[in-house]
């Protein structure tokens, strides 16, 4: 862009901005050409003014001619979103570290660039690169190299990303050194670096990139000079490798983050023997191993050694370690002790303390249905049910199961318990007649009663029929039980039989009154035979006794 042209346009844009501010809200309701033009110009100005702070935006300026409202808006959005998140983060940091604001003020001479550098510094305070120790080393080395090579004119946006990281690495280191961490952390393993790395990763995801300028790098230099010799040495060692990496990463802004990623990956892939087992790095590796052992209780001495190395009593890290250790001890103790009764599986009352079950919220499986809660609704529903049932007449009465009788019901001889009206002579007379003349039907007492009853009923029916003028329907044929007396069939048929035949009216099965399975002599089992004989003997004995009794 031509600065002069830019200046004139900015002026017009500022004017239009003021104009927009001054317009009343109701004027916006109606679309006006001049207003839209003014707005476009103003937004262009804003865009370009914000652009320096937003490294990743693809547009150098806001393109408004021939573009849709939506498209303009999207351009703005594209620029502003990452900017917003970065601003938020910076504000948070300012909240936490108010002293940085003063630094900011001091660094105000360098202009925006310096400010940026400080901001970066503040940002990376909290980022710790734990995993990528090599990366740190690489970054450190790169940084140093860059400082050596490109102390000036580092406004190339190609290497900003790398610089950032290197900055961060050195800054982290410087910070770490300043804080004098305990034994766990060393050049390789720094918790702060880990944090910083994580945040940096997040920033990468959001597409936020911090620019690094010459001034910033200078500041880093100052910082790095504070570090111990180890860092420099280490950095130098790794410098050779990282040169290659740098050379590869001359890309556009867009490819910056990819380059960073590649760098990290390359660092991992290109981990060489020297990284682990060079003269200086032996120490670091040992320390690394030591630091790992610190987690166990065996190498407490190392801890102590490291603690002795450090100044000023237990550091934050040491405190954390102590906490962790105590926690671990607690847990191990809990594991070794016998478990709480709730964790012991099946526990009877004798095995736990008195009333200890009251304190625990126990969950039971109730196999019994809970008693129904009688509410008004329940009673109302019950009453309704009762009413409907009564109205329908639908009672769940038990129906008697009729046993189907296959046999004809036998006529039971009824004992007449009243004084007989006939004299004895008549009785014998009848008996004699029955003997000689079987056809004369012998009316038993029950028959006489039935006859009497039927006579009465007939009389009644006659009277009732008279009421209905003798228009009546005949009685339905009801299959009645027919009582069959065991009189010889011939006797019933013939009027005056001279001979009496054996054939009786009733069939053998009707005469038969036995129960169960009748077996012949040949079919009996031994036990049954014995049983029969025993019964026989018993009967015989009884009869004999009776006879004896009678005789006596």
């Amino acid at each position, binding site marked *: 862009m031509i600065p002069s042209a830019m200046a004139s346009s900015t002026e017009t844009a500022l004017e239009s901005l003021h104009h927009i501010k001054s317009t009343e809200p109701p004027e916006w309701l109606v679309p006006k050409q001049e207003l839209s033009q003014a707005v476009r110009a103003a937004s262009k100005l804003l865009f370009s003014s914000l652009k320096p702070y937003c490294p990743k935006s693809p547009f150098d300026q806001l393109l408004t001619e021939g573009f849709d409202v939506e498209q303009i808006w999207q351009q703005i959005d594209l620029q502003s979103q990452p900017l917003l998140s970065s601003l938020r983060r910076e504000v948070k940091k300012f909240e936490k570290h108010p002293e940085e604001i003063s630094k900011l003020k001091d660094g105000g001479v360098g202009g925006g660039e310096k400010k940026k550098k400080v901001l970066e510094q503040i940002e990376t305070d909290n980022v710790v690169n734990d995993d990528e120790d090599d990366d740190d080393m690489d970054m450190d080395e790169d940084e140093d190299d860059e400082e050596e090579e490109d102390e000036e004119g580092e406004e190339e946006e190609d290497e900003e990303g790398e610089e950032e990281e290197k900055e961060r690495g050195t800054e982290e280191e410087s910070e770490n050194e300043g804080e004098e961490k305990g034994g766990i952390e060393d050049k390789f393993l720094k918790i702060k670096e880990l944090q910083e790395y994580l945040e940096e990763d997040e920033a990468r995801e959001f597409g936020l990139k911090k620019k690094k300028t010459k001034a910033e790098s200078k500041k880093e230099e100052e910082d790095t000079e504070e570090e111990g010799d180890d860092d420099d040495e280490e950095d130098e060692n790794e410098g050779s490798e990282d040169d290659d990496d740098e050379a590869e990463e001359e890309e556009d802004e867009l490819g910056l983050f990819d380059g960073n990623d590649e760098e990290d990956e390359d660092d991992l892939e290109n981990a060489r023997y020297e990284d682990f087992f060079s003269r200086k790095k032996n120490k670091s590796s040992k320390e690394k191993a030591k630091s790992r052992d610190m987690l166990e209780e065996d190498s407490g001495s190392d801890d102590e050694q490291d603690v002795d190395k450090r100044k000023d009593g237990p550091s934050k890290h040491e405190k954390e370690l102590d906490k962790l250790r105590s926690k671990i001890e607690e847990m191990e103790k809990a594991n070794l002790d016998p478990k709480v009764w709730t964790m012991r599986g099946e526990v009877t009352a004798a095995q736990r303390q008195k009333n200890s079950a009251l304190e625990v919220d126990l969950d039971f499986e109730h196999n019994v249905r809970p008693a129904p809660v009688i509410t008004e609704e329940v009673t109302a529903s019950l009453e309704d049910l009762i009413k409907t049932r009564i109205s329908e007449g639908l009672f769940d009465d038990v129906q008697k199961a009729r046993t189907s009788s296959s046999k004809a019901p036998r006529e039971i*001889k009824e*004992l*007449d*318990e*009243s*004084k*007989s009206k*006939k*004299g*004895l*002579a*008549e*009785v*014998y*007379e009848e*008996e004699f007649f*029955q*003997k000689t003349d079987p056809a004369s039907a012998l009316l038993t*007492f029950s028959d006489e009663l039935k006859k009497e009853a039927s006579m009465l009923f007939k009389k009644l029916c006659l009277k009732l029929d008279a009421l209905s003028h003798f228009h009546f329907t005949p009685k339905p044929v009801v299959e009645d039980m027919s009582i069959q007396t*065991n009189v010889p069939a011939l006797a019933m048929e013939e009027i005056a039989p001279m001979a009496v035949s054996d054939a009786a009216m009733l069939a053998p099965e009707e005469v038969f009154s036995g129960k169960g399975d009748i077996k012949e002599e040949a079919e009996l089992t031994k036990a049954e035979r014995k049983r029969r004989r025993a019964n026989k003997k018993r009967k015989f004995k009884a009869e004999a006794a009776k006879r004896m009794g009678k005789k006596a």
Partner: protein
Amino acid sequence: MSAEAPTSMETETVASETKLESNTLPPKPKFEPLKAHEMSDGRIQFRKVSVPPHRYSPLKKYWMDIYTPIYEQMNIDIRMNLKARKVELKTRSDTPDVSNLQKCADFVQAFMLGFDVPDAIALLRLDELYVESFEIKDVKTLRGEHLSRAIGRLSGKGGKTKFAIENTTKTRIVIADTKIHILGSFANIKIARDSLCSLILGSPAGKVYSKLRQVTARLAERF
């Protein structure tokens, strides 16, 4: 008479004598059956039946019912000896059979025991009917309340047990205090006696009934 006989015999004997004039036995005499009156050498036979005091008024009540069949159908003279309190029976000349007197005596005796006239009349009509008497103490020695209870058991409520036995066994029973009289045919008497004895011994009426039913059914099957 003697002259007549020889004449009848003579004709025969003449015939025979004419044939043979040797010693031959006289023919067998033919006699007609003796009448009741002529029995015991033509003397009259008597029977005397004493009347117990509790049967005195019933006798007076039913006298005609007793008198009529005896006098007219059995052809036996009957009279009441008030002074001696006895019923006297005497054969007549036209009494057909000697057994009539005995039958009438049995009939009267039955009435005196306590049987009703229509029941006792069966004795006159049928030959095979008998009266058996026994006492409760013959079956089982019971004293005081047990005896009373036994008597009660025999009769049943309103006499229903007794009637039940009577009806099923075709007998007539009279329970007079501790004496029991049964009137009927031999087999029936036996059945009735058995059931009465079981009642005396203590079995409940229902049991007696069931047994009665069985026995009578079996009896009926015989014919």
